[in-house]
């Protein structure tokens, strides 16, 4: 028994020496003689304490500690929303916007005299956000690609101006980006995401009551949805413009875009260049009409073939109801455009059908692509109103369409020929089978006869 105790004591000594040796070797340690283990513990406890003192209010968000547990839903939800926000970072915290004293874990921290803000007014809001978002060194710590001009642009915009005038119905930063659940714009759940932004704008701009004091129209979103832009967006085209495609999200007006035509120009340069060569260009200027708008409209930008021609809804008939020569041109343009749309549709259906039949016709798909390019060029050429050029282009497009049809027809004929080959092979093999069968039956009979 005593032997066992000795062993334990020896082991304990060995352990102590083992622990003490590396600790003693470390520089800056107290001299030998003091109990090393106890000293070490003390040092461990001391270090974070010093750290905490170096960066106050950053370490722990004491606001969340209480708000997470509150029974009042309204007060709890802010904490929950904030947890998912892009601002969830100890370097920002609740105090970044609400001020107050987060080191005081009592209700005293909500002391308004100490600067606590419950609900910032619309006038204050842009200044609060700008407090961080105008500071490039601060913003760069989180997102190096984020700009710092949002507040300046916003203050220039009509949104900013009415907010500055104290209009509590005006939109501020939080109206579009959310207050506690602020998400980056490229997040799919963000209100201001490209996918959702039309609904966000419509929330105010499609509300007749809301827009009444400002004298603004309310049908823009509806019109846009019917337009080529809206349809392209609905089909999932990445580049299709939504509200923010033309209206700057913060400034309202994009730089250098005093007129609507200048906006169209940002994507449709060729059309504009061609338009400037047309008889319309001079006439519109004389009449004081905006370049693109008289024919295309603003939010309800339509398909080219809907616009042209002399039907009651067409753009041409708006001005040229009685003129003889323009009337002819309009009808010719409409005919050419309708023709090429029909051609494109026909070839596209033919290619799809061929694929469904299992025919592989990459050359026809390639021709279809070329046809589509021709169509786009033709639509651009319409802006010059040069009927001869249009007819030439249309004929060229038609020959591409015929080429595609020929390729598909040839592939189908080849397939049929191959089928015939199969039938011939099956027939020949069947015939051979019958002959061999007859021969072996004959042989069996002969054997049976010679057997007895």
């Amino acid at each position, binding site marked *: 028994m005593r032997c066992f105790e000795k062993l334990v004591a020896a082991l304990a000594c060995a352990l102590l020496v083992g622990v003490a040796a590396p600790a003693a070797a470390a520089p800056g340690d107290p001299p030998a003689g003091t109990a090393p283990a106890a000293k070490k513990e003390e040092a461990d406890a001391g270090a974070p304490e010093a750290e905490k003192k170096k960066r106050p209010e950053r370490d722990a968000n004491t606001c969340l500690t209480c708000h997470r547990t509150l029974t009042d839903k309204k007060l709890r939800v802010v904490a929950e929303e904030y947890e998912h926000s892009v601002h969830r970072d100890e370097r920002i915290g609740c105090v970044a916007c609400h001020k107050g004293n987060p080191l005081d874990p009592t209700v005293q921290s909500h002391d308004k005299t100490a600067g606590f803000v419950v609900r910032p007014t619309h006038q204050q809001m842009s200044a609060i956000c700008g407090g961080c978002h105008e500071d490039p060194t601060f913003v760069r710590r989180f997102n190096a690609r984020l700009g710092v001009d949002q507040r300046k642009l916003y203050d220039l915009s009509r949104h900013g101006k009415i907010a500055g005038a104290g209009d509590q119905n005006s939109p501020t930063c939080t109206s579009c980006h959310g207050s506690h659940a602020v998400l980056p714009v490229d997040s799919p759940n963000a209100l201001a995401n490209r996918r959702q932004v039309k609904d966000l704008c419509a929330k105010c701009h499609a509300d007749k009551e809301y827009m009444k004091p400002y004298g603004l129209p309310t049908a823009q979103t509806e019109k846009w949805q019917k337009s080529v832009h809206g349809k392209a967006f609905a089909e999932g085209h990445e580049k299709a413009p939504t509200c923010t495609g033309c209206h700057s999200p913060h400034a309202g007006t994009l730089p250098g875009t005093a007129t609507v035509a200048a906006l169209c120009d940002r994507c449709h340069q060729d059309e504009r260049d061609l338009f400037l060569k047309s008889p319309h260009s001079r006439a519109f200027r004389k009449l004081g009409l905006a370049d693109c708008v008289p024919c295309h409209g603003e939010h309800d930008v339509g398909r080219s073939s809907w616009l042209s021609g002399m039907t009651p809804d067409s753009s041409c008939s708006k001005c040229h109801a009685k003129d003889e020569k323009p009337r002819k041109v309009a009808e010719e343009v409409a005919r050419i455009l309708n023709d090429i749309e029909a051609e494109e549709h026909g070839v596209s259906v033919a290619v799809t059908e061929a694929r469904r039949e299992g025919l592989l016709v990459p050359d026809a798909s390639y021709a279809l692509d070329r046809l589509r390019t021709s169509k786009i060029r033709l639509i651009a050429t319409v802006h010059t109103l040069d009927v001869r050029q249009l007819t030439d282009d249309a004929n060229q497009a038609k020959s591409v369409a015929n080429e595609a049809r020929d390729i598909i027809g040839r592939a189908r004929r080849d397939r049929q020929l191959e089928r015939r080959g199969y039938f011939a092979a099956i027939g020949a093999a069947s015939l051979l089978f019958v002959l061999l069968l007859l021969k*072996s039956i004959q042989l069996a009979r002969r*054997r049976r006869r010679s057997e007895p």
Partner: protein
Amino acid sequence: MASVARKWLADRTGSSALLERMRARQIQKNSVVHYIGAMLVFLFLLEVASGILLLLPYRPDPAHAHASLTAIVGRLPYGALVRGIHAWASHFFVALLVAHLSITLLLRRFKEPNELVWWSGLLLLAVGIGLAFTGSILPWSQNAYLQARVSSEMIGQGPLFGPWLKHLLRGGEHVSPWTLNHAFGFHTGVLPAATTMIIGMHVVFVQRRAKAPEGPTIPAHPDFTLRVAALATFLLVVIVSLATFAPIPLGSPADLREVITGEVRPPWYFLFLHELLRAAPPRLLGLESPKFILGALSVVAAFAFALPFIDRRGSRITMFVGAVFIVLVVLLTGHALL
């Protein structure tokens, strides 16, 4: 003219001597096993011929495999026919192999002096299934890719060589571009060579059997060869018709990012296993059920190999047990198919 040519050829190749020997040789008259065996040789030759044709335009790499097969089927003259024949004939090959062995088992022909024939037959079944399975991966369609994943996972659950075989099939720990490379190598090199050798040995073992056939007999030539030729042409008609009227679809190209939705069905010769694995509880006798089932199957395979020693005289019990096993497998496959 024809007789002159035949004589010229016979003088140089000794084919007349071979034919004479075949004329003298007697074969059991109505033995299904012989006819199925001959059909298997024919199907193997058909597979080799069509396979070599497919080898030229096929590209064994994940980026081009499916596209090259689409081009074979869609653009090459008679490409769809060759591919159709190759695909359909492979199903017939496996099915007839199974039938060949089942009938041998039920007729108790595994016993002395047929041990070597029986073993080479069993090996041939393994290699044949391997050929069909590696071939089904080559189109690298979504389904082929998923099958490669699921079936190799299943094989990996087997005892002893299971994990090793899985590694070999996948060409690494996971299904990757190397999987396709391995499948291609096995399908066009290793396994056809193995099949050729095993078929050769199998036929030699059959020929060299000492015992004379029982019952009524016919000469190997021209009686048997004529019937085999007739049967082979009939089979060819069936296969070409199926390739024409019931083409096996290629499926969409493999998309490795796509999430597996729904059930992945293995090829029909693995369906009974799939059905068993699906129906089994998670654990059987303290083992994970896939491990247990694959282990049990391996025991059955080992039993089949050892059968000539276990049952030297070919008792009726073996026949009965074999029949029950075959019926079970057929029922499970049928249940999975319907």
